[in-house]
């Protein structure tokens, strides 16, 4: 991957410091993290609307900002398109006026041609003479994209483009946005606090927390192998816990947790080899905990890995599935407050096993379902 965009910036504000470094190639980089983590501030630095205190921003062959060299290209000359949160369409201009706003300075005929081209490509021709307040949320999104794309920017910045919409529309427009970005083939940086959005739209995901980048990785790697405990927490991964290492090899890690000896697969791409007796963090996806049927116990003769037993202490009906909170049959305080493990079972399984009647269960975990996280 050739890196198209290189960002290394520092900006000190009242009670907040942004200090980030990441790079991205062609395609979409999603800046993901909770509100107030510095994602929008990063976009504003990229666009030249906010001047960093130190650092360097390089886009392709152009240095946009370099504090050491005294370079700070004005936002007007950065060739960066910006889609603002809430879109920031000019309310006093028509759709055509908005889309053509960045084309001033071109010859009238050329400007007109480009307007038509952009309007047609985004399916906006029927609305060309309407004002923003007369448009639906989806149409507004397209106008905002059209306005930013009309000038052929080298990079497109999108700040929470879907946050102004309610849920059903949001999903539809997320897919539409993805299709438009793919169609125009433009390099983009997208800010979002929604993991699904980051995952659907981003080729690369940069995870922000409190003004820092805690992981930047291609999306598949991030979701399945978050690099640290904080990444797992920010991504809303449940059952993040801590154990004590027994033995670590290139392909297996054994550790002790709540009186059990558990075995997990070590990541083949970047093996993590903690010393014996050192603490390690791991997580278990709730949907990968396997309840053992009592009527078949001992019958199937399968060797169950990471076998444990416990009691359901709480449950939540999620409609198509149930979330169960299990407490192990072990003395001592449970790992997560009143329970040790959260697991999720499909509704059908819940009904067949009659979990509402029977609260004590044996369960197992395949070693591939336990993900060890390098502590951070």
């Amino acid at each position: 991957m050739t890196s198209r965009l290189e960002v290394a910036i520092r900006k000190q504000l009242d009670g907040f410091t942004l200090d980030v470094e990441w790079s991205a190639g062609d395609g979409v980089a999603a800046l993901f993290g909770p509100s107030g983590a510095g994602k929008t501030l990063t976009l504003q630095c990229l666009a030249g609307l906010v001047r960093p205190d130190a650092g360097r921003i390089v886009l392709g062959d152009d240095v946009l900002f370099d504090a050491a060299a005294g370079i700070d290209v004005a936002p007007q000359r950065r060739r960066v398109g910006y889609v603002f949160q809430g879109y920031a369409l000019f309310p006093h201009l028509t759709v055509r006026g908005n889309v053509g706003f960045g084309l001033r300075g071109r010859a009238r005929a050329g400007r007109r041609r480009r307007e038509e081209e952009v309007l047609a490509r985004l399916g906006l021709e029927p609305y060309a003479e309407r004002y923003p307040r007369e448009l639906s949320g989806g149409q507004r999104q397209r106008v905002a994209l059209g306005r930013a794309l009309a000038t052929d920017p080298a990079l497109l910045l999108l700040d929470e483009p879907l946050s102004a919409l309610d849920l059903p529309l949001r999903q539809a427009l997320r897919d539409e946005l993805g299709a438009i970005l793919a169609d125009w083939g433009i390099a983009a940086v997208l800010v979002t606090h929604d993991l699904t959005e980051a995952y659907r739209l981003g080729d690369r995901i940069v995870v922000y927390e409190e003004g820092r980048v805690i992981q930047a990785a291609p999306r598949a790697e991030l979701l399945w192998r978050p690099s640290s405990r904080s990444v797992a927490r920010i991504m809303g991964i449940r059952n993040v816990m801590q154990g004590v290492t027994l033995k670590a090899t290139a392909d297996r890690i054994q550790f002790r947790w709540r009186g059990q000896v558990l075995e997990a697969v070590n990541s083949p791409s970047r093996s993590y080899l903690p010393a014996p007796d050192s603490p390690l963090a791991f997580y278990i996806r709730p949907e990968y905990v396997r309840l053992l049927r009592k009527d078949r116990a001992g019958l199937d003769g399968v060797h169950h890995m990471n076998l444990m037993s416990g009691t359901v202490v709480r449950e939540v009906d999620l409609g198509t599935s149930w979330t169960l909170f299990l407490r192990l049959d072990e003395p001592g305080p449970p790992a997560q407050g009143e329970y040790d493990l959260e697991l999720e079972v499909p509704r059908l399984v819940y009904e067949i096993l009659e979990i509402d009647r029977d609260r004590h269960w044996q369960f197992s975990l395949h070693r591939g379902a336990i993900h060890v996280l390098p502590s951070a």
Partner: protein
Amino acid sequence: MSATALNALVGIPIAYLLARRRFWGRNLVDLLVTLPLILPPTVVGYYLIVLLGRRGVLGAPLYRATGFTVAFTWYAAVIAATVMALPLLVRTARAAIETVDRDLERAAFTLGRSELRTALEVTLPLARNGILAGLVLSFARALGEFGATLMLAGNIPGRTTTVPLSIYTAMQTGEDAEALVLVAVLTALSCVVLIASNRLVARPA
């Protein structure tokens, strides 16, 4: 009318700068522009004489250079009215400019507009109603200006007499009927102006 035009020329840029820029002396400018609203008009008039009179800080050099002095001329009436009406315009216009979404201006920047072009094409058009309301109010204030005008421009019939000054003169000389007519006209005009300005402020841009 001249006072209103001068007001627009001076007041709108001041309102924009106060709303959008953080510059050294910003609070001082804010204070100076607002003072005429609070001070007795005669005090403002006094300061204007100190500043622009024949022996004033600015007036003296001007008189030496050109033999012309502002005091007791038609210009004096215009300047006095402008200064007195400026706070109303600046305050109203500034509030209107501050309500314009900054992201709209940022969008204009990323689309290649300079700050001046952005102000002319985006900010001011969107603050238009508030600015118009401010102009209407300041027009009414300028029309009704009495104290500062009397101080700087005097009350020379046909040259520096404003409507309130005429009313004063009419009362003093016992021409009650003429005073009544002028009072009625000024009251009616003020009502119209207030209604117009309220409507402008209430209307979305």
